[in-house]
């Protein structure tokens, strides 16, 4: 038997649906309000109140189902998950249990080696979020904030198809991309709009049966997911190789200490006593309605990447990077439209220098300080030979910092490229005169000195000479 361990991971992703009101009440779902101002009698679980399903949440869940090639159930059922906790006002959470709205979908992820792997999505179901307990703000007491109670969630459950933390991250990012493409979730992980629980187990390579799993709760960043899984895998290997056995339990990841610790074991787990919620009729969706929804789906990331390869001729890598964010792809395509072509050049600038500036300032592409029109203007100056690539980088930085367009920067800095053959020739002759030794060496066969002359010419022109013309003219003139 192999001594190698195989890691088996399944993720449960909670995506907060971007509805304006809650899943079963009319309260606002906006983030950041003062405690309990967005909790009405339904959210507070008052005696006599009843839930009414938000149609928009259903539409969003169904769109997700269609986007992952899943079955959008004709009939799904809301159930009650019963347990006591102060931030769970009714003493039960309304969720879907036996019959979820989305069943049996799949997404493709790209592995580090560039190959594609299909990850099964067992189900995605609608449920309401709980409120929050506040333990820090009130010494000796616990506060309850029910603003979040009743916020619609889509819980997306993967098959145990993931084999490493890297794969888990790729999958989570793919789902993140999808929900943002579909505009059903803002994807904001700091605010908890997109978070996940990871089920992790290990087994000897080649074994068919799964090992005992542990569930790691409430991971709200890609980095934490990766670190938590790697930590948990190492812990499980230690336990098993030390002759111990894994106890099925729920563990909490502590990012401060970079470790997971036990929350509760299977024995302590609640018996949730799920049963169909009698306050809500089964959710029945008409086949025609589901089909009409399909027509509203945007171009999805895989299709977009495919098109960027086949129609724009981009390398698969570039297509993957650009299509990973709907906004980035939109930006790229807008620039292409303005420039009228040049896909690889545009892709390089968007993915390269522009992305570097965005990262430097911590901005999303929607907040770019260089608009699509301005980037298109810059690229036009490269295409028409006004700017060298090197100069263009400088211009872009100035555009970014000063909020100006390319032509204004070129004018102000006098950065216009020198393309006048006679002018370049004059400079070259001057350089040859000033460096007779090097000239003699070159002519006696020291070809490497060509670069020296290029450098001298560029230096003398302040980098403005057109490099192509410099090369051509130098070859000719140095040859004598």
């Amino acid at each position, binding site marked *: 038997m192999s001594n190698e361990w195989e890691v088996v991971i399944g993720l449960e992703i909670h995506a907060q649906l971007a509805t304006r009101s809650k899943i079963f009440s009319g309260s606002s779902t906006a983030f950041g309000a003062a405690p309990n101002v967005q909790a009405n009698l339904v959210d507070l679980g008052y005696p*006599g109140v009843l839930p009414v399903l938000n149609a928009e949440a259903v539409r969003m869940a169904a769109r997700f189902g269609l986007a992952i090639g899943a079955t959008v159930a004709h009939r799904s059922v809301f159930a009650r998950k019963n347990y*006591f906790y102060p931030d769970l*006002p*009714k003493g*039960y959470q309304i969720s879907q249990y036996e019959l979820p709205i989305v069943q049996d979908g799949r997404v493709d992820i790209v592995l580090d080696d560039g190959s594609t792997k299909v990850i099964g999505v067992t189900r995605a179901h609608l449920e309401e979020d709980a409120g929050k307990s506040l333990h820090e703000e009130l010494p000796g007491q616990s506060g309850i904030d029910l603003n979040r109670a009743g916020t619609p969630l889509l819980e997306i459950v993967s098959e145990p198809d993931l084999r490493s933390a890297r794969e888990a991250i790729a999958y989570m990012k793919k789902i993140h991309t999808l929900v943002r493409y579909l505009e059903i979730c803002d994807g904001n992980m700091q605010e908890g709009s997109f978070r996940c629980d990871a089920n992790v187990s290990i087994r000897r390579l080649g074994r068919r049966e799964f090992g005992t799993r542990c569930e790691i709760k409430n991971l709200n960043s890609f980095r934490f997911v990766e670190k938590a899984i790697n930590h948990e895998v190492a812990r499980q290997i230690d336990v098993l190789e030390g002759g111990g056995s894994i106890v099925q339990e729920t563990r909490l990841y502590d990012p401060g200490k970079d470790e997971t610790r036990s929350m509760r074991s299977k024995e302590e787990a609640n*018996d949730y006593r799920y049963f169909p919620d009698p306050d*809500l009729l089964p959710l029945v969706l008409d086949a025609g309605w589901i089909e009409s929804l399909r027509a509203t789906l945007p171009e999805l990331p895989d299709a977009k990447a495919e098109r960027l390869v086949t129609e724009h001729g981009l390398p698969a890598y570039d297509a993957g990077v650009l299509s990973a964010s709907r906004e980035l792809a939109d930006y790229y395509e807008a620039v292409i439209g303005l420039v009228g072509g040049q896909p690889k050049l545009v892709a390089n600038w968007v993915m390269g220098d522009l992305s570097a500036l965005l990262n430097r300032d911590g901005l999303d592409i929607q907040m770019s300080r260089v608009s699509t029109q301005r980037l298109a203007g810059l690229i036009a100056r490269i295409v028409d030979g006004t700017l060298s690539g090197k100069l263009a980088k400088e211009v872009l930085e100035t555009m970014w910092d000063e909020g100006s367009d390319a032509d204004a920067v070129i004018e102000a800095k006098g950065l216009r490229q020198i393309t006048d053959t006679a002018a370049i020739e004059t400079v070259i002759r001057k350089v040859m005169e000033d460096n007779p030794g090097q000239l003699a060496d070159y002519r006696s066969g020291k070809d490497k000195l060509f670069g020296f002359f290029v450098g001298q010419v560029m230096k003398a022109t302040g980098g403005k000479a057109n490099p192509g013309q410099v090369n051509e003219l130098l070859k000719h003139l140095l040859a004598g």
Partner: protein
Amino acid sequence: MSFHALTAAELGRALRRREVSSLELTDHFLARIEGSGTRLNAFVTVTAERARADARRADAEIAAGRGGPLTGVPIAHKDIFCTAGILTTCSSRMLANFTSPYDATVVEKLTAAGTVLLGKTNMDEFAMGSSNETSYFGPVRNPWDEARVPGGSSGGSAAAVAAGLAPAATGTDTGGSIRQPAALTGLTGIKPTYGRVSRYGMIAFASSLDQAGVLARSAEDAALLLSAMSGFDPRDSTSVEQPVPDYHAGLEAPLAGLRVGVIREFFGEGLEAGTAAAVTGALDQFKRLGAEVVEVSLPALPLSVPTYYVVAPAECSSNLSRFDGIRFGYRCESPRDLYDLYTRSRGEGFGDEVKRRIMTGTYVLSAGYYDAYYLKAQKVRSLIAADFQRAFESVDLLFGPTAPTPAFGIGEKVDDPVTMYLNDIYTIGANLAGLPALSAPCGLVDGLPVGFQLIGPQFSESRLLSATHAYQRETDWHRRLPPAWA
């Protein structure tokens, strides 16, 4: 004038003819409630000030030539309906301090119809009981014999109307809680089709069975109130989007040719002889009025009681979880920690019968027992509904007794929950199948009223009411008052 001997419809007509003002009526009933009426313990809260304000408003409406058949008619609400600014206790220590911030849809609609709110009536705690003995505020007495129970869970509403403390009252019926007390106090009580009346603001016992209805002196009164209460409510997903017929206008529909099916399973062992005789007498009256009577069998119906005592506790165990001492209602003194807060608040706040049902319900939903109990009960429930459906292929209405015996003595059955549960043996089926059903008085056994029951297909309230109205035009059982309260 003995206003309390009149029906709500008659009072409404007197009001519109200006023979009496709503304020006079209101004062008359308040005086009875606050006088000898206190003996019955029928009210948890008397809303005298609110009643007089309602009455003045109604009198102004009538003076202006506006208002409908119920404008100015005093009524009482079972204390399970949320009433804004008024205590809403469900007769539980858990909610003894709970003032609702909002009105139930039923309350809203009856207020809009111009009724005057006299107060909130006593009931079995959280509507769990058949004798009104589980109330935190003590048992309600039956005005026909004050040593006996009025039935339950709407026992306060029943006693109040029977004793002439209120012309009519609302009730709720999860397994017979309107019909059985109506039978035991000589009233006409209707539980409409599930989904006919909004459950919004009606504190839930068993959501898939609960339905609001009326306890009144006649089918005509029941028709008036039911018309005002019914209708689709976007706040209740289980309410049905179907127009509400004018039940009052439909009362005169002829009875001749109506096919009435006598439920064989309801006339077997356990039915007290005097009750059987009175109910059979009513059947003869229906025959004389031109009904075609046939016997039908609903073989799954005897499984109603065990089925109900799985489904209802299961739902109640979850519905009552919100009473946790955190946001409203009873909280124990000085809790040590969260667990102590939960267990003592609930342990002290709920009475024994409520706890019994929460425990039963928790058990039947537990891992390993769900299939054997809850799931199986749901299957039997489908069989019972199918039995009814089959029966309605050949008959228009089903007929039987409402309760197996007349009112029993206070304290007589409290220590024997199973015998108590069997009191609902004839009423539970309609709840399990979501069907409308009505009880109306048809005789006295040793001075105690008994009632017959009609069960109809979904949304056949008009037929139930008109058949009963035809019966009541030929009989006077519904006009009898308890001798001590005449």
